[in-house]
């Protein structure tokens, strides 16, 4: 016979806590900030140079203290390459390597000694401002962040993060008052940028059209990945990442944008890649690229691609 049918509940936290006033941490908004990139290639060293500039929107509620660029790759390799220069003491030489072995190796250059660059356990490079004065204050820009890599460019994800100085300066609340837990990651903004990638057939687009396949690979693209590209309304530029085949004949290369010759904007070095930003819109924009190359049989052939940009 049970005299107690109800469950016995032993509540360790059954104390009636006094009513607590909750405060919210102030916002650390970075909306409107941007990260621009510029990619160059040195045929002599076969090293790509990726230079970044961070621009903080004037309406930001905090400085930009750091930004990251995803460098995840697919090939395991040593993470330090002596031929890729650094102007910082790399953490790998002091405390160890923490990023995955498949991360794309890079050399890291920071604008000044107020910044440091390191690799995250997820294979991101992080540029971080060490001192409040060196971080990117609202309405300012800081450039001179450089990655050097033997890997060609491709689309990458960047994340801009806010400084938490504003929160660090808050006084501790009195008894009975507390802040709702928060993380500044909430205010991070994610952007598309360009960085080194491990290229493969899976992440390169041939542009379509030509046969045989080897001809179609004279010109390939890491961005876009289709010959019809929808772009958001109001977007006025687009960065095309072109991969040139090993056997192209550079002198035969031509590029037109809506029929206007823009060949001079390209630097068609065989077995290299480059990122070229073109103007698009307001209506449909057609970019036509063409190059001759030598087939494995010794004969010549032409690869011509037309990329169409469709503002939405």
């Amino acid at each position, binding site marked *: 016979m049970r005299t107690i049918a109800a*469950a016995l509940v032993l509540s360790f936290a059954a104390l009636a806590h006094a009513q607590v006033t909750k405060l919210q941490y102030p916002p650390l908004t970075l909306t409107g900030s941007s990260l621009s990139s510029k990619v160059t290639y040195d045929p002599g060293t076969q090293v790509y140079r990726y230079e970044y500039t961070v621009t903080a929107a004037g309406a930001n509620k905090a400085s930009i203290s750091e930004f990251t660029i995803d460098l995840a790759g697919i090939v395991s390799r040593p993470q330090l390459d002596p031929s890729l220069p650094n102007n910082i*003491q790399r953490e790998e030489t002091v405390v160890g390597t923490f990023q995955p072995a498949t991360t794309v190796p890079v050399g890291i250059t920071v604008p000044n000694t107020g910044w440091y660059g390191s690799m995250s356990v997820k294979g991101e490079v992080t540029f971080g401002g060490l001192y409040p004065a060196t971080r990117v204050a609202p309405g300012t820009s800081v450039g001179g962040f450089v990655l050097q890599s033997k890997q060609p460019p491709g689309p990458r994800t960047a994340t801009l993060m806010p400084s938490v100085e504003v929160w660090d300066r808050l006084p501790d609340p009195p008894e009975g008052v*507390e802040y709702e*837990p928060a993380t500044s990651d909430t205010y991070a903004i994610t952007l598309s940028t360009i960085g080194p990638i491990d290229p493969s057939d899976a992440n390169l687009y041939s542009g379509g059209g030509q046969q045989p396949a080897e001809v179609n690979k004279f010109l390939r693209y890491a961005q876009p990945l289709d010959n019809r590209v929808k772009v958001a309304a109001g977007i006025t530029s687009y960065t095309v990442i072109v991969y040139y085949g090993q056997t192209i004949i550079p002198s035969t290369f031509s590029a037109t944008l809506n029929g206007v010759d823009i060949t001079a904007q390209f630097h068609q070095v065989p077995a290299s890649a480059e990122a070229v930003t073109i103007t698009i819109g307001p209506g449909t924009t057609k970019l036509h690229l063409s190059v001759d190359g030598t087939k494995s049989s010794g004969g010549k052939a032409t690869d011509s691609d037309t990329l169409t940009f469709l503002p939405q």
Partner: protein
Amino acid sequence: MLNEETLHVAGLSSLRSGTRSIERRSGDHTTVPIEKGSTRFLFRRFDALVAGRIKPDDITASGYSWVRYETSADLPNFFTGSEGNHLAVATGETVARDNAAVGFYRCCFAPQYEQVWTWNVYAPDASGNPTVLFQSASNHQTTDNFGNPCWDGISCGATSVDYLPFWQIGCTWKLGNYKSEVVYQFRSLQSDPLSTAAVIFQRTWKLGPSSNAVAISVDKNPIHPAVTDQDTGYTSLQRIAVGTTTVRVRTADCNVAIGNVAFTLAVVTDDGGSGHVHIGSAGGRCGTTAADPGVPIHDVRTFAGGSSNPAGGVMISGTTDSSGNWSTTLTTGTVAGNLKLTATTTGAFLGGPPATSRLYTLKVGFIGLQEKVLTSAETTYLYLTGQKDPHPFNHYGSPELNDYIRILGAKYYVNWPLGQRGQLGINDMSLVFGGLFDVCGRWTVPHQRHRGGTDVDFSHDYLVPGVTPPPQVDGTVLKRVCREAGGFRVRESIPSNLHCQVDQATGTAVFTRLSQ
């Protein structure tokens, strides 16, 4: 009725030094069972194991005691000469029926020409008085023609023998009042008459129910605490539901259920063992030196059937069913620690006084947290701090957190130029078994998190060799390396806290594992 099946006698002898005796030894270190009538005697001879124990005058009552052996492993071992582990039974003491045996104990005796001991145990009669001779045994010593003592079942020559008669307790033994006594006769010379039998030792005692006649069992132990009052910080597992288990009380003795027994189940928290124990006081750290208000399960009045336990816990009344069973569901709160459960019958039990169960300890905690111990390499860039009352054991984390801290500390270190590199101070992580980490020992937040070994706080003091006062940790850089190391920095309720925790996937996996 004499119960011969359960009588055992340990004969532990030593040989007297001397040529004559040595010549007589023929069975040293051998084991020979000898049947004497219907009572089994087992003996083993020892050369020197008990030498020096001869006490010629020690035949007084003070040399005897009535003892119990809790388990079979505690029994005397005839073959090794071990006297076992006995516990003396005081006059009037109750011996639980699940003890392995009861018996007499005495020390050494010098030989006389002849000695006779009779060991009697009287069971209760119909009136409850110990008058029924229930068990009996005797042993006997004489002297051979050479003057050597001869003990029952033992070759002549031993100068001292301990007899340790004991009886295994069985379910046929009647509960109630017992009496044990030793009757002794002797003569010093062959020409003397045997002395009048005299009771030289007597002990009255009681046989009670088995110590587990009122027994507590729990279906799942340990169980995890809840995280229901705060957010874990992991979006896919923001709260940890309460841990539950079934607590059972059974009343039975000798495998016979005893039904309809009313009892009180008392639950108190651990106050001196593992888990969440407050040590000392928070002192100035929390702005108060007031005494710990007590463990928080004291607030039980909101629960039907419960009442406040003066010991600081809860008391629940129940009655076993006709099969001797009762059960209920126990639900954990947010604090880790040991729950100590005892059930006591509210009235007479099996004709004796109220019976109390053995103490049952139920652990509430996140099991598997490991203390963060710094390797020599880690001491380059990390140090431990914050080991303060009332929680001096504040550095427990999941293996994932402990490794996260290693990476994080290394990363923070290498950010700074040479000469500015130092050690990051690891402050509070989690308690030994997790659960609410009430910094001030008053069962209130903060900490809001730090529940299951996924969180760590850092000291503001960054210890750089040769630099005083120590530089302060840069919160923004720390936030960055928290992220680089695979986690994230979080503000708890106090803005100045330098709090980081492992990433979403890892934290979710840790809590999932710990709350199985």
